[in-house]
């Protein structure tokens, strides 16, 4: 790909040292223009992936990583786009395949895509209050009401934190013991260090 042409056309774009493919840090306000430019001028015609990122200690904390593939030149390019106030512009009008990817990034990280045609959750149910792939969310989950109120009324079930998160599960009591298998790594309970 023509790195120089891209950085000259979008001066705020920074060429990062990617180990496996050409990588750019891009300004999220220019993201849609860059993706459109790469598609129309440099032949990156296939959206390979779009995912949300939680960089935890960085500011901004959240961002979007996009992988584009040129089916003509058989070449990948990766774009890092940090969020501004947890938002980035949508690219689903340029690559329609980004539609569900962006919904997943919203569902899992809470990143809002400005201009998205259908900004709903895609995996969790609509009333779920958290974004589970954020680093500060425990894998076992947080107790919330069951999705259907009438089913919850009959069964008394809630969405509860899962027990024994973080397998593998090993039996501590020897061969054929009656003890319930325990997870080796019990750092999830925040009382023991990560093993």
């Amino acid at each position, binding site marked *: 790909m023509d790195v120089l042409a891209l950085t000259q056309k979008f001066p705020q774009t920074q060429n990062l040292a990617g180990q496996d493919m050409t990588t750019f840090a891009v300004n999220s306000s220019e993201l849609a223009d860059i993706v459109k430019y790469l598609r129309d001028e440099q032949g990156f015609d296939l959206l390979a992936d779009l995912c949300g990122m939680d960089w935890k200690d960085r500011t901004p904390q959240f961002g979007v990583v996009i992988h584009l593939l040129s089916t003509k030149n058989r070449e990948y390019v990766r774009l890092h786009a940090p969020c501004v106030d947890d938002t980035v512009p949508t690219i689903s009008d340029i690559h329609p395949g980004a539609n569900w990817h962006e919904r997943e990034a919203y569902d899992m990280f809470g990143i809002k895509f400005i201009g998205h045609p259908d900004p709903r959750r895609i*995996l969790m149910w609509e009333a779920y209050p*958290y974004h589970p792939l954020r680093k500060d969310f425990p894998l076992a989950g947080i107790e919330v009401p069951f*999705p259907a109120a*009438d089913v919850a009324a*009959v*069964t008394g*079930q809630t969405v509860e934190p*899962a027990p024994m*998160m973080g397998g593998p599960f090993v039996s501590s009591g020897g061969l054929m013991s009656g003890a319930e298998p325990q997870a080796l790594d019990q750092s999830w309970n925040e009382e023991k260090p990560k093993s």
Partner: protein
Amino acid sequence: MVKSDFGYNSKIEGEVIVTRADAVVNWVRSHSVWPMPMGLACCAIELMAAGGSRFDISRFGMEVMRFSPRQADCMIVSGTVTYKMAEVVRRIYDQMAEPKWVVAMGACASSGGMYRSYATLQGVDNIVPVDIYISGCPPRPEALLDGMMLLQEKIRQEGGSLKRTFRGRTVDTKIVS
């Protein structure tokens, strides 16, 4: 058939068989289980294998898989039940006509299995009463057949009541609209 279900000696009774109504009804029910394949994950592949010619679930009288809950009387929950899907599983269970049974096939349906996470219901017995649990990840078709034969045995010993135990207490089966 359990030997004590009816007394029959052709030299004494001729062509008459004396038995109890419960025993006959249970015998008929146990040999005509119409399963509803609630296939949610990889266990469903083993469930399909059990229906194929090699393992042939029809040898035991339960090959009539119905994809409508209104025509089925045994829901085989085969796979991971997420919280989002749990609501659907319960509604499908409620649409099945009595008498009805539930088989939790595999580790995920029985206990959540390896999915100790925010998204997975930790056992389908949290939302529907389960009659038979089958271990395995996934269970082999033989294990499913063994579980279904256990279910037949359970059906033969039923007393005709619609009451069943759910979370340690006896309940009437309530209908969710």
